[in-house]
């Protein structure tokens, strides 16, 4: 499977319970693109999720919202949906992909 195949870009998982939410947040933490969170008050926030902590009394995520200077902290309990809306910046950027491009460029130039 290539890196491109593994991308979660565009994914909008169903979140049925706290365990599913925790699993999706882990994916969001690993994801190298922006995500969108739907909160319990109807608010929708876009940004990069860079941290999460479940080992505290009130588990939370931290993200840099687009256009904001300081990060936001959002309790897990307020999250209703997590969507992988931003471009996956890691997808297609493997060393193998670069080698393929380089070889193709060399072949095209005849060198």
């Amino acid at each position: 499977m290539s890196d491109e195949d593994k991308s979660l870009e565009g994914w909008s998982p169903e979140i049925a319970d706290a365990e599913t939410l925790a699993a999706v947040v882990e994916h969001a933490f690993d994801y190298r693109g922006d995500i969108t969170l739907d909160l319990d008050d109807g608010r929708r926030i876009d940004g990069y999720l860079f941290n999460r902590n479940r080992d505290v009394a009130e588990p939370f995520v931290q993200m840099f919202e687009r256009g904001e200077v300081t990060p936001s902290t959002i309790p897990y309990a307020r999250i209703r949906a997590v969507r992988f809306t931003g471009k996956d910046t890691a997808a297609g950027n493997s060393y193998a992909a670069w080698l393929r491009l380089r070889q193709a460029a060399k072949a095209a130039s005849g060198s």
Partner: protein
Amino acid sequence: MSVPVSQMWTVATYVLGQKLRGRKRYPLVLMLEPLFRCNLACAGCGKIQYPAHILKKHLTVEQCLAAVEECGAPMVSIPGGEPLMYPDISRLVRELVARRKYVYLCTNAILLKEKLGEGLFEPSKYLSFSVHMDGLREEHDEAVCREGIFDQAVEGIRDALRRGFRVTTNTTLFDGVDPGRMRQFFDEMMDLGVEGMMISPGYSYSKAPDQEHFLRRQRANELFSSILSRAKKSWRFNQSPLFLQFLMGRRDFECTPWGNPTYNMFGWQRPCYLLQEGYAGTFKELLETTRWEKYGRSSGNEKCRDCMVHCGHEPSAVDATFSSWRGFRDTVVATVSGRL
């Protein structure tokens, strides 16, 4: 070995001071990442894969200095991203030098000549440009995925040396490296006149895209042995000789993940420079709440199994130097004789 005496003295007194205070966990080098933005996109680097709004951000000098004060390490390494793209790099370095921190500014050197020409830096025993060089021209340009970068880096190194700056190189060795070519590279760097070289194996860094080319431990030992077994007298390394022996498989060290703590716009990175498993708000929180027993080879953590990278193991080597007379003696003998 090429670390200046004043720096060795600073590190020695610092480590002994930590031991006398009974501190089990202490930092040696702060890895300070003021930004992730870079003017290269190397295939082995996962640091730059962020959305544009994150790449546009950077720490303030005040945030950097607060982290330096809080951490207390005697040495500060400034990787990134490319630190010469940090708009306040001149002031940051000046403030760190004023605090008598030994600064390693890790750069690909593309902008080095230009920035030196603008008078952004002054030579100091506390400041060293640590230029990223992954081998001779062909290997380096391939590693950084752009042709012509080796020549630019060499030009930058020459200019920095001519202006009286300390210059070292840092080299990551990936699988497939030709030991003969690497020895040739060491000769070339010494001929250039750099103060010393730093080497480290490619690592099992889970977010870096080039997994297949990272070195496994056994292969790493074989590779470093074949490169360093008959180390030339002329080669100078800006790192612990015990760490080099570890790379060659002549010693074993457990990882010291808190030895080179990382601070960036996300906070204090857990547990180390390579693994990104979360962030702490303060250095104290990092030390006290990270479950350190989950990391290092003996933990059984598969992410740590083959890692031999300098950021976790060089602090172990330095600690070993000051933990026993034997460690101290071995370090002195290797330093004086140049034999590994």
